[in-house]
């Protein structure tokens, strides 16, 4: 049987309470009986006094100790009296007295004069006897009550078992067998159609019905959600653009196949965190972070194009990055990143750029972009030199060996120029057989050295393989310094042109100058 089952609890409670009631009531009965008996004994003693008062009075009146003794002894034989005492004229006649506290005293009058007190009769009630009696009554009462309590407990247990426990066990067992959401219901136990248990079963059945309905509704909703989720997943997974959901600190929460594919392309394995905003993946990640910060500060979606880090330099990868800040219902912030591969477009743009800015044949900057670069240097107030170079003897080669050979010569010279200038400097094809070289932050001495080097290379005989013929060209060079000679591009170029002409003239005159500076030309 269950230790904390209703029956055991009921039995324990009833037995303990009946014990308590028995104990208290026996105490009360004892107390009550005791007081009652004391009262009774007082009454009996008063009666005794009435009975013996005549004789006792005579004894006291006649100062007769023997008679008094007789009275006292007679009283002591009575069960109610523990001891008695007669007192007259300074004399005391008494039986053995132990308990003088509860003494009861009566006056003894003269038999002949009613108002004249001739002595006293005192009696002590037998409290011990009374106590024993009271205790016995109390004990008997307690026994009776205990027996009654035991009987009541047994009856209550049987009734509770039959009326409550058994049906409840039945209900509980039945309930255990029922799975929520099914159509099975509890059966109301016999004789409980209108009892509280019946009500409970009814309520449970009601609850079961509600649960069934609710579960069915939930199942339906779940199915719908599943379908929806499947579709969303389809959108997400089949997207060609990588989509990533991350926490602001960079922990990736979810990503699609396209993202892993992208990582494969740049030879990286997927990991949990690529830094905030995937910054580890981008070359210019500082500008990405900066742009995102500005966009979010303006409550805008951040959009930008960034180059991905990549192992192969000749195949740069570019993506358009769209970053959206999402705040969830529980006030957490998430970043949604969508990447669009724009490498192809970038490449085409690059190509277009090259076509627009470079001379197709020599792959040097064309005149248009050269001018733009010079304008930019002027705008930045940089010191530089414009070196204008015109080939000598090129027209002859072109006429003799054809355009292809001429082109070959031009390409060769372009290669020489490319290799002769520093990274920050540049050279461009100005038109026909004219070239412009721009050198920044140089003095005349350095210019002369470079020019000499270039001229040496240009003047080296060139072997035309188709014609199996060695040819050579020369060059006339003029230079104008910014900002010393002039401040605008056109002026600089004109001055360099004039200087170049001066060099050309010197060759005719046999002076053979390498270079003429604009300030050396005098009109």
């Amino acid at each position, binding site marked *: 049987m269950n230790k904390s089952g209703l029956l055991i609890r009921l039995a324990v409670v009833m037995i303990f309470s009946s014990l308590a009631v028995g104990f208290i009531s026996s105490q009360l009965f004892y107390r009550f009986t005791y007081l009652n008996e004391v009262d009774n004994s007082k009454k009996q003693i008063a009666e005794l006094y009435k009975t013996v008062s005549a004789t006792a009075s005579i004894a006291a009146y006649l100062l*007769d100790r023997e008679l008094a003794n007789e009275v006292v002894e007679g009283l002591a034989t009575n069960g109610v009296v523990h001891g008695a005492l007669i007192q007259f004229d300074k004399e005391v006649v008494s039986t053995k007295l132990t308990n003088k506290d509860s003494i009861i005293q009566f006056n003894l009058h003269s*038999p002949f004069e009613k108002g004249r007190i001739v002595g006293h009769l005192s009696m002590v009630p037998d409290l011990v006897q009374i106590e024993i009696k009271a205790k016995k009554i109390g004990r008997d009462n307690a026994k009776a009550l205990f027996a009654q309590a035991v009987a009541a407990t047994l009856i209550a247990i049987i009734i509770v078992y039959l009326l409550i426990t058994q049906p409840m066990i039945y209900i509980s067992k039945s309930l255990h067998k029922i799975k929520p959401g099914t159509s099975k219901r509890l059966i109301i136990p016999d004789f409980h159609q209108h009892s509280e248990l019946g009500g409970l079963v009814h309520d449970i059945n009601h609850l079961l019905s509600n649960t069934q309905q609710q579960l069915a509704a939930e199942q339906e909703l779940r199915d719908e959600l599943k379908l929806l989720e499947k579709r969303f997943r389809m959108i997400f997974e089949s997207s060609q653009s990588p989509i990533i959901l991350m926490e602001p600190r960079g922990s990736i929460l979810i990503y699609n196949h396209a993202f892993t594919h992208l990582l494969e392309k740049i030879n990286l394995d997927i990991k949990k965190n690529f830094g905030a905003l995937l910054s580890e993946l981008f070359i210019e990640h500082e500008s990405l972070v900066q742009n995102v910060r500005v966009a979010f500060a303006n409550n805008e979606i951040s959009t930008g194009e960034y180059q991905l880090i990549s192992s192969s330099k000749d195949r740069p990868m570019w993506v358009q990055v769209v970053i959206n800040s999402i705040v969830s219902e529980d006030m957490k912030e998430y970043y949604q990143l969508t990447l669009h591969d724009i490498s192809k477009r970038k490449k085409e743009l690059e190509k277009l750029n090259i076509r627009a800015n470079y001379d197709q044949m020599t792959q040097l900057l064309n005149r248009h972009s050269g001018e733009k670069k010079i304008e930019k240097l002027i705008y930045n107030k940089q010191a530089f030199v414009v070196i204008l170079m015109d080939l000598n003897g090129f027209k002859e080669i072109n006429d003799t060996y054809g355009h292809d050979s001429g082109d070959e010569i031009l390409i060769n010279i372009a290669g020489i120029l490319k290799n002769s200038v520093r990274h920050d400097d540049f050279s461009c094809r100005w038109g026909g057989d004219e070239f412009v070289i721009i050198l920044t932050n140089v003095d005349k001495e350095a210019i002369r050295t470079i020019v000499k080097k270039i001229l040496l290379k240009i003047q080296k005989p060139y072997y035309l393989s188709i014609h199996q013929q060695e040819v050579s060209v020369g060059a006339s060079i003029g230079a104008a310094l910014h900002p010393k000679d002039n401040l605008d591009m056109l002026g600089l170029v004109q001055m360099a042109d004039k200087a170049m002409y001066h060099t050309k003239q010197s060759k005719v005159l046999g002076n053979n100058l390498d270079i003429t500076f604009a300030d050396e030309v005098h009109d």
Partner: protein
Amino acid sequence: MAHLKLTLLIITLQLLSVTALATEQDLVVVVNINNPTSQMTKSQVIDLFMGRYIAFPNGEKATPIDLIDNNHIKRFFYQNLVGMSLARVNAYWSRVKFTGRVKPSVKVPSEAGLIQHIQSSPLSIGYMERKHLTKQLKIVYALNE
């Protein structure tokens, strides 16, 4: 209740005796003229006649002289002194005698004999009608005062 009835009865009887008998029975308690005692209270008289004390207040041994029964003076005396009939007085004595401690008084057959006895014995005490008082006797207590 019974007690109250008895008390009422006694009071009625006493009243009757006072009004009906006082005129014809004027009793006094007397001693020998030579007895030093000159005055006694009712209690002292009762104590002597009912056996409590056997001495006068001054300590001298006293001998109460009583009349024999069937004497109307005696009946009147006890009725007035202790409020008891002679039957009850006798019942008292028979009870007291049983213990053997007290001896009842000397009994004489007539009032004349009683006077004679007291006149010859200075420590005797007795009761009589006032009208029969002699010069050898002295009143120590009067019943109707």
